[in-house]
C-alpha cells in the first residue's frame, strides 16, 4: 500500500469507464473500501440518501451501516470523531456537506487533527480525509460558495488537495485515503458534472504534491487548480488560435504543492498568470507568486499576475461577476503579454 502511494502507478486493468468528477469520487471510495477494511465513511445524509450531491450513492448498500453511516448535524464532533478513529487505526473519510460548514469543525481540523503527529513527537498521527464540496458557481449565496482552502493550507500538518478532472479526482482521493497524514479534499462542486472522461476501473493513485501540465506552451504559464481549470484551458485554446502558446499547470495538490513543475514552466515562458476563485487577499496563489519571484526574478518577462475572486463575501445574485471567467483571464493574459 505504501509503495502505491509514492508514484503514479500503472493501472492493473485495462477497463475504463466514462465518468464525471463526482462519479470518480464515488468510485475511489468504493475501491478503497473494498481494498481496506479500515476505511469508513460518515457524514450528514451520506447513507441511504447518498449525500446531497450523491457522492456516496450506493456505498451504504454495498458496505453496510457499520462502515457507511449518517451523523447528526454536529460538524465539530464529526471531525473530532474522525481524529479519534484515525488515531486508533481506522482510515476515516468524513464528509462535510459543504466546505462552508467546516466552520464548526475548524478547531478540530486546525488545532487538533493537524497537530497530532507533531505534538505526540511522531508517536501517532491522524490519517483522516475530510471530503467537502467547495467553491461557487451553484448560486448558493455566501454560506454555500466559499473557497476556504487558504485557511487550511496555512496550517502545517494538513495536506490540501483539489482535483479538476475525473481521472485525478479518483487517483487523488485514493492517495488521500492512503496518506498517513490528514488530508482536506476539496471538491470543486460546480464541475462535479461538467464533463466526463475515461477513468480506469482499476487501482491507481495520483501522488499528492504533483502538478499536471495540461497544455504545453512557450509564451505564458497559467497556474490554477479546481473549478477554474476548464476556463483556464479555454483561455489557452483561445490564445493558441491567436498564435500565443500557453502552458497550463494544474496544481491538483495545494499542500504540498509542486514547486518544481511550476518553476520549470515559468522559467521557460517568463510569464505567470495565477488563477483561482478564492478571494484575492492571502489567496494561496500569493505563496506561488512569492516563490516564483524569489526563484526566477531574472527570468521573468513581466510581473507575476493573479486573477482571483474579489475580497467580498460571495454574492448571492452575482455569481457570474464574482467568478473569474475566461474574459478576466484573457484580459490579464493580454496585459502580461503586452508588458
Amino acid at each position: 500500500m505504501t509503495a502505491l502511494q509514492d508514484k503514479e502507478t500503472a493501472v492493473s486493468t485495462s477497463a475504463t469507464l466514462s465518468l464525471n468528477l463526482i462519479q470518480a469520487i464515488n468510485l475511489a471510495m468504493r475501491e478503497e473500501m473494498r481494498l481496506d477494511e479500515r476505511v469508513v465513511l460518515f457524514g450528514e445524509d451520506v447513507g441511504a440518501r447518498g449525500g446531497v450531491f450523491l457522492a456516496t450513492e450506493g456505498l451504504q448498500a454495498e458496505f453496510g451501516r457499520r462502515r457507511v453511516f449518517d451523523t447528526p448535524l454536529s460538524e465539530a464532533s464529526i471531525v473530532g470523531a474522525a481524529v479519534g478513529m484515525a488515531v486508533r487505526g481506522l482510515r476515516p473519510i468524513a464528509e462535510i456537506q459543504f466546505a462552508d460548514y467546516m466552520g464548526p469543525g475548524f478547531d478540530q481540523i486546525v488545532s487538533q487533527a493537524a497537530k497530532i503527529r507533531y505534538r505526540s513527537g511522531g508517536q501517532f498521527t491522524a490519517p483522516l480525509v475530510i471530503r467537502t464540496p467547495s467553491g461557487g458557481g451553484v448560486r448558493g449565496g455566501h454560506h454555500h460558495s466559499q473557497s476556504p482552502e487558504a485557511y487550511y493550507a496555512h496550517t502545517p500538518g494538513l495536506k490540501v488537495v483539489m482535483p479538476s478532472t475525473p481521472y485525478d479526482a479518483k487517483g487523488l482521493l485514493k492517495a488521500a485515503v492512503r496518506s498517513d497524514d490528514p488530508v482536506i479534499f476539496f471538491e470543486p462542486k460546480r464541475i462535479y458534472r461538467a464533463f466526463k472522461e475515461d477513468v480506469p476501473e482499476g487501482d491507481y493513485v495520483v501522488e499528492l504534491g504533483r502538478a499536471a501540465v495540461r497544455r504545453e506552451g512557450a509564451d505564458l504559464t497559467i497556474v490554477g487548480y479546481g473549478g477554474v481549470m476548464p476556463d483556464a484551458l479555454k483561455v489557452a485554446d483561445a490564445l493558441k488560435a491567436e498564435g500565443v502558446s500557453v502552458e497550463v499547470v494544474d496544481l491538483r495538490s495545494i499542500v504540498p504543492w509542486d514547486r518544481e513543475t511550476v518553476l520549470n514552466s515559468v522559467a521557460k515562458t517568463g510569464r505567470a498568470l495565477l488563477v483561482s476563485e478564492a478571494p484575492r487577499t492571502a489567496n494561496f496563489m500569493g505563496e506561488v507568486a512569492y516563490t516564483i519571484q524569489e526563484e526566477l526574478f531574472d527570468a521573468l518577462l513581466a510581473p507575476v499576475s493573479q486573477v482571483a475572486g474579489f475580497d467580498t463575501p460571495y454574492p448571492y445574485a452575482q455569481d457570474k461577476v464574482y467568478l473569474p471567467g475566461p474574459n478576466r483571464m484573457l484580459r490579464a493574459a493580454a496585459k502580461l503579454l503586452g508588458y
Partner: protein
Amino acid sequence: MSRVTSPLDLLRVMVRIRAFEEAVGELFVRGGTAGTMLHLSIGEEGAAAGFGLAMRPGDTFTTHHRGHGVFLARGGDPRRMMAEIAGKAAGSCRGRGGSMHIADVTLGHLGANAIVGGGIPHVVGAALAARHLGSGNVSVAFFGDGAMQQGVLYESMNLAALWRLPVVFACVNNQYGMGTRIDRAAASLDFDARARAFGLRGVTVDASDATAVFETATQVLADAREGRPALVTLDCFRFYGHARKDRSPYRTEEEEREGRSRDPVARLADRLRGEDVLDDDTLTAMRDDARREMDDAVAFALAAPPPDLAALHEDVYAPDRPAPPSVDAYHALVYPEGEARA
C-alpha cells in the same frame, strides 16, 4: 389570547405565510429566484405565527434557513423578501443573501442563517445588549430540530441560564433535518429535559395548534423578560421536501399523509368555523387577499432592477474605509469591457 391578538389575526398571518410560500415556490420553479436553494415552511405556520405574534416590537430574533414565516409574522414586508429572494437591489439585504439570509434590523430580525446553528449565539449577545441598554426586550433564536445536535446551542443555553438573560430558544421541530428523522439524530427526544439540565425552563407545544403556541409563547416571553430563559419546542411536520423540488424518498406516503393531517391553518380555520367566529366567505376572502398580496410581491420582485455591479463591493467594510486591494486591482479590469453585462 391577549387584548391585541385575536385567533383571526393568527389565522390571517398563517394564511399569508402559506400564500407566500406557495408563491415563492412557484417563482423558484419558474426560475425567478437568484438562488438554487429554497426552504419552505409549509406546515410550520402555527409555530411562526403563534410565536411571532406573541413577541413585542423591539424584540429581536434570528432564524434558521426556513425562516420566511417567522419574518412575515414579525411584520416583514413580502415585497422586500420576495425581491431579496429574486436577488434584486430592492430586497431587504440588497439582494445579497436571498432566502437563507433574510434580515431586517428595523423589525428586530438579526438574520436568517444558512449555517445550521449559526444564529443561535447571537441572541445571547442581543439579550446582553438589551439588558445593558435597559430596553426590556427579549431575543429569540428560531432554529430546527437539526440544530439540537449542534454544540453551540448548548453553550448558548448555558450562558442564557447562567446570566439569566431575556432569551428564548425556539426549536421548530418539523421532525426532519434533511433526510434524517429526528429519532435517528438524537437518542433522547425529551428536549424539555435538555433545557432543565441547563437550568432553563423547557416546554413542548403542539405547533399545529397556533393558539396553544401563542399562549405558551406569551408566557415564556414574559418570563424571559424577567430573566428566566426557556427552550420551547414547537412540534410540527415538514409537509414537503427539505428544499423546494426535493423529494423525500426516506419517508413513507403514510407518514406524510399523517404528518400533513396536522395542518395548523386548517385546524384553526375549522375550529373558528365551529365556533361561528369564521364563515366560509370570510375564509375565502382571507385566502384571496393573501394570494393577491403575494402575487403582487412576485410582480414587484420580477420588475425590480438587479443590483448594480459596483454594489458588489459595497458593505464589506464601513463606507469611509478604503476599498480592499483586490477591488482596486480588478475594478478597472472588470467593468470597462462589461464582461458581467454581456
